[in-house]
């Protein structure tokens, strides 16, 4: 039982990362009906941005890691990634706005490959270590936790949870209470009508990319805190898994993406954790997400919360 809860906690931690990345996929799909293949690599850039900025910030705090240091690095990475997302959209996707969606999909693959390989050129192929921002250690649980004191809960896991919740609340606020957020929702339903209401669609789309990319950047920092080894190809697996999570929740549906991400993180961790009992070699870990994806697309392509769309004949 303890083991199950432990796996659950680990799964939630992983799921939070997937959720943050998945939100970017789903928001962009919502407004443009297009899968931004390069999104996972923005996540990677976030991690590397953090790696280069962190030493400067640490210098300010005299080399002492702290939550403040982490927050500053996090915000910096988010801003850089937001900027990157906006630039990519403007240069590579906007000129293709009226072309068949497959053209843009291929372009996105190109951008993704470029980021990965240029990253290898610029940062080197080998993994590098992410500086310690918070002084991670396991929390000693108070005695009244009873049998649960055997659980290993890292500070970083708590941090990931807290930051993710904060970001999700902030996102919900932006999407429901601000003008830009409402415009984003309107765009995903009917772009033409939205522009007729006086909304500059291009600005809203840029905003959407920026927002999604910022969340991916945050995810990049958060995962680097948990697993301090980063490399230019680190966006590949989480990227495709987060995409699966977005599809699972119903692509285009924002709460769905968050739920999907957490669900996927938990399922994947449980499958790996219990792999011997399930008689599945743990080498199949990465296939879990693909397998789920295929199941969803074949049986319920609209995901948990999505709505089907009819083509007008």
């Amino acid at each position, binding site marked *: 039982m303890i083991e199950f809860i432990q796996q659950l906690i680990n799964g939630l931690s992983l799921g939070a990362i997937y959720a943050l990345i998945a939100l970017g996929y789903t928001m962009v799909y919502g407004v443009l009906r297009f899968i931004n293949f390069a999104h996972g690599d923005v996540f990677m850039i976030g991690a590397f941005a953090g790696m280069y900025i962190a030493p400067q910030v640490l210098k300010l705090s005299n080399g002492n890691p702290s939550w403040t240091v982490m927050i500053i690095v996090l915000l910096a990475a988010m801003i850089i990634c937001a900027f990157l997302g906006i630039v990519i959209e403007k240069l590579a996707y906007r000129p293709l706005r009226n072309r068949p969606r497959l053209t843009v999909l291929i372009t996105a693959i*190109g951008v993704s490959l*470029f980021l990965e*390989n240029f990253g290898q050129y610029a940062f080197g192929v080998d993994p590098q270590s992410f500086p310690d921002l918070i002084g991670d250690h396991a929390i000693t649980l108070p005695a009244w936790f009873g049998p649960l004191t055997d659980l290993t809960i890292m500070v970083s896991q708590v941090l990931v949870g807290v930051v993710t919740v904060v970001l999700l609340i902030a996102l919900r606020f932006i999407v429901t209470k601000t003008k830009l957020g409402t415009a984003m929702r309107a765009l995903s339903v009917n772009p033409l009508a939205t522009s007729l209401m006086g909304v500059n669609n291009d600005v809203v789309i840029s905003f959407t990319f920026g927002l999604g990319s910022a969340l991916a950047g945050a995810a990049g920092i958060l995962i680097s805190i948990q697993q301090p080894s980063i490399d230019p190809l680190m966006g590949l697996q989480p990227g495709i898994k987060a995409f699966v999570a977005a*599809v699972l929740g119903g692509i285009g549906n924002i709460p769905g993406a968050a739920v999907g991400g957490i669900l996927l993180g938990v399922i994947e961790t449980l499958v790996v954790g219990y792999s011997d009992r399930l008689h599945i070699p743990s080498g*199949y870990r990465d*296939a879990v997400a*693909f397998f789920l994806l*295929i199941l969803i*697309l074949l049986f319920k392509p609209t995901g948990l919360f999505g709505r089907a769309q009819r083509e007008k004949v």
Partner: protein
Amino acid sequence: MLERNKIILLASLVVIFAASRFSSRIDPYYYQIILFAGINVILATSLNLVNGYTGQFSLGHAGFMSVGAYTAGMFTTYASGAWLGALKPLGAFASNSLFFAIALCLGGLAAGLTGLVVGIPSLRLKGDYLAIVTLGFGEIIKVVIENVDTLGGSRGLSVPLGYTNLFWVYAMAAVTIYVIVSLVNSTYGRGFLTVRDDEIAAEAMGINTTKYKVLAFTVAAFFAGIAGGLYAHLTQFINPEGFNFLKSVDIVTMVILGGMGSTGGVVFAAIVLTILPEWLRWLSERPFLPHWLAGLLENRMIPYSLLLILLMLLRPQGLFGGIHFKRKHA
């Protein structure tokens, strides 16, 4: 008039046979490139049937290639004793050739069957979703191979019998081109194009669009399997990483560059994109190049990905695709 295709095919086979007599005179480095080009021609032409002519976006072609590669490789490695023994009376040349032909066919059939199994459920989906599902299947095939020890797992598989040569590769390429072109240019084959242009109108004209999609997928997978078999017996060592998503993207790039729906264009693009990385590597070694530029060219994916982006921005119909792209329905 329809006989023309057959005559061209036979003539090509004769020419290829003649050319292959001179194989030993070619520098081994260039020889390899020529063979790889031929294999890529098979891959690109077959994928063009799915992506170009039928308008379905498949991103998992390398998966089918790997099925063919491993099937043919395992067959020649483990069944050589029994089969070559049985075929001995035919003489060394005939028995080896027949043995290899059987291996290739088995690879093709295995790949084709995989294509059928993957295609039937997947082809209900459209556009981006189909692309992602085919990508997913490609990855699953890779992961399965990595976890099966008899296939060598992630360490790879040795294929000692290096049967592949110029004749085999280009003869198969000629056959592939013949099949695809003949198919598409018949009334039956025009059905593929209708699926690409307008599925709803196609169905209204009595065309079973699902059948055509699955057929295109299966035929393409078959030839990818043949290409895989040829590849395995050329490099004489295969591992799952060599058939990953990047390989699928490579093949898709050839189809796009050539112009989806133009077999000639795609053949040309396959050859160009086989030579390009070698040329880039040569270029990156030139002494007059500044160091940073050399580094950028060394990793061929950097100029490659930029090429892909520029291609989409500036000329999405590829070099030879005069076709009208599918209208995006509002």
